[in-house]
């Protein structure tokens, strides 16, 4: 077995500059062109809330909002997010106050192992922005690109209904 003693740090691939705003905070990062957005978040920015579950855009554990639209960050290059805004699970809680979606998942037991939860909540956030009063079927359709192996989805649906209700009530009060 050959072991090299002096680690080299270059891979020889193209490097590019990316300007990206994550949860409202601007970042300028130089990355290899082939780096995926999820790795930019997890490795370069150290934000490990966004998870990787499948590499094929099926499981949705890596879902983030790119300019407000849910995308699966395991199949988006980091450079594609240049000059764009990214929202991740870490940005849901604002000024120490949980988002109604986070509250809903806790209150309705919408999570077990927690691995799919960030992607599931981000997808729910996008749904509720577009449709503040979704039907059960609309919720199920919206999260059908996010796989959960623990909960059987029943309580995830209830969690999102909780968040929708709470958001509507808060708006009414305001």
């Amino acid at each position: 077995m050959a072991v090299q003693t002096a680690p080299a740090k270059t891979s020889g691939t193209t490097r590019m500059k990316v300007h990206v705003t994550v949860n409202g905070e601007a970042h300028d990062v130089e990355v290899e062109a082939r780096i995926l957005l999820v790795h930019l978040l997890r490795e370069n920015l150290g934000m490990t809330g966004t998870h990787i579950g499948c590499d094929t855009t099926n499981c949705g554990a890596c879902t983030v909002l790119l300019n407000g639209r849910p995308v699966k960050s395991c199949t988006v290059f980091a450079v594609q997010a240049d000059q764009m805004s990214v929202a991740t699970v870490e940005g849901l809680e604002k000024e120490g106050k949980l988002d109604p979606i986070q509250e809903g998942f806790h209150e309705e037991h919408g999570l077990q192992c927690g691995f799919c939860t960030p992607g599931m909540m981000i997808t729910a956030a996008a749904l509720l922005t577009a449709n503040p009063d979704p039907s059960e079927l609309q919720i199920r359709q919206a999260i059908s690109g996010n796989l959960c192996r623990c909960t059987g989805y029943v309580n995830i649906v209830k969690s999102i209904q909780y968040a929708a209700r709470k958001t509507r009530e808060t708006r009414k009060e305001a």
Partner: protein
Amino acid sequence: MATEIGGIGVSVKRKEDARFIRGRGNYVDDVKLPGMLYMDIARSPYAHARIKSIDTSKALAIPGVLAVITGKDLVPLKLEWMPTLMSDKQMVLPTDTVLYQAQEVAAVVATERYIAADGVAAIEVDYEPLPVVVDPIKALLPGATIVREDRAQKDNHIWHWEVGDKAGTDKAFADAEVVVKQDIYIPRIHVASIETCGMVASFDKINGKLTVWMTTQAPHAIRTVIALVAGHLGLSEERIRVISPDIGGGFGGKVPVYPGYVLAIGASVLTGHPVKWIEDRSENIQADSFARDYHITAELAAKKDGTMQALRVKTIADHGAFDAAANPSKFPAGLFHVVTGSYPFEKSFVEVDGAYTNKPPGGIAYRCSFRVTEAAFTIERLVDVLALELKKDPAELRMQNFIPPEAFPYKSVLGWEYDSGNYGRALKLAMDKIGYAELRKEQAAKRAKGELMGIGISSFTEIVGAGPSKHFDILGIKMFDSAEIRVHPTGKAMVRLGVKSQGQGHETTFAQIVAEELGLPVGDIAVEEGDTDTAPYGLGTYASRSTPVAGAATALAARKIREKAKLIAAHLLEANPDDIEWKDYKFQVKGVPTKSKTMQEIAFAAYTNHPQGMEPGLEAVDYYDPPNLTYPFGSYICVVDIDKGTGEVKIRRFVAVDDCGTIINPMIVEGQVHGGLTMGLAPALYEQINYDDDGNIQGGNFMDYLLPTAMETPNWELGKTVTPSPHHPIGAKGVGESATVGAPAAIANAVVDALAHLGVRHIDIPITPWKVQKILKENGVAE
């Protein structure tokens, strides 16, 4: 009061949620250490091939690639093979032959994740393909390609295992009025937890200490395995620390030791750097251990009136290339001999033969206790075949035959002692909830109109909580479990356990057990698991054993503390300990509620004012060796409609009545049942791992392996009965897997019921639209 402190029976919201909903969980891939390197693995494209040569030079030429490890490199270290949990051995890396597609061939260590992958792509292996055998039945025929040339025995037969009275069973069948026989294939499936497997291994050369963060359901057992496998290299058990951090679902898939773990440890020892290895999904689903793959022939003998008499089951078990199942040592076919289910058979004989094939190791669980789903599916399917034969209603046939409630504890003909049960009550509740009689009327009306609707029942009995030391061990280590409780001076408690949650909510439920036993609020009790340097030794979380075994240990450790606390209370109240009673979560002088001491007051005194002659402090540890297993049960009823155009099965309703004994947290139990039902639906209708004749996996990623989404999953309707376990300290039985065990038969029975008038008696799962449409076409009813 129980509600205020969050004791047993209260739906306490989960403590662990706080970090998960903020994205602050700490999973293995979240662990980052200074100087950490990355490992990636080159895998075989062939299912069976001779390795003629491996050229690693191009990989090593890539800047950032530090090392490439091949099988030959492991030979001087005596690490090219490792023992499995089933007295077999498994290649860590092959030295000359690969035995299945996606088998590990070489490991690349590099400074970055992407560079490690570049290194893998640059490795050149010259293979000479060999004949492949993927079908275990063919593998057992004379002249079949031999998978394991390393063994002295020159065939593919691993073991024969049998239990029961063969001659008596054969006679019962010869004399029987009615015999039904059914071939049942329960296909190979994969647990596919959303988090794959991985490890960060960090070897400190100076003090010889190895620390690993690892996706494991059994950290203590893994520590011992590492010491046994690599002890000759100086890794001794006191210098091995296994940390199982947050785990993104386990379901049995994170019990075995995979070659990648061994390689990551080796790479860290070799380079002196921490090394991270994280599988991608295709590696996980193509190479990690599989579940099921049982080819079953089952026969049931009965009287004409429906009385069941004898059961005979013959099975061929496909274990892939290595017998790396995770069963208790004594039971190569797991607890499959609970196959007599909920019925009092007089005679039974079960035999299983294990076979090697050119497939990855199989035989681990899929959210089930050691082959219990295979058993429950077999008997519950066979009961429906008998009902069709006798033209009896399947609910009536079950009610007629159930082991009666007064027969418990019930000794089954194959040797198990069922602790408690009331099967008729559970089925009746399920029938009432779903409106069984009305549904049968509706079905008759629909059938008259040519519409396809079916109702399926499954009245299963599980066997969990392994297990009593007399029969249960893994690698010789008895399957006890443990809890340690320390009550601090301010009345707050720390609980450490030998098990490890992968989503089950232990931080909440085990705190509830302690709250109930000690009268401390659940919020004041911290639960910590998964660090072998701090937690007491235990065998881990799988086979629904956490509550039956570690839950019992927790209750008993708390009771030890309460015994001591009683003496301190007597001292504080200046009373005789015999005059002190535990009432309303406090100690009081008998009949004098005003003269009482809370556990908080007692805890403070244990450190500040303990009775002379008594040890100070307030803590206890309990290692619990269960006297028996527990036997959760339930009755499920499923209603399906079938689309005559597409053959698609649509689940209209599904009522699940579960009985898991005493319920600690109803919210969490419901969540466990929801998830279990969905993992019962999955293999019933969607999931299967197939191989072509060359051993190429069909469905080795999430594009081809169909996990149910929110669209396929129905709104499960739950009900419950409570029949406590008489031998468990709090009467709990465990619930994490019941639904996975019980659901597939209910769904399959419903589909067969919808098609029974066409002469259909059985369809192998997964019941895909293609299979159904083929039946509809053959019978001229397809639209």
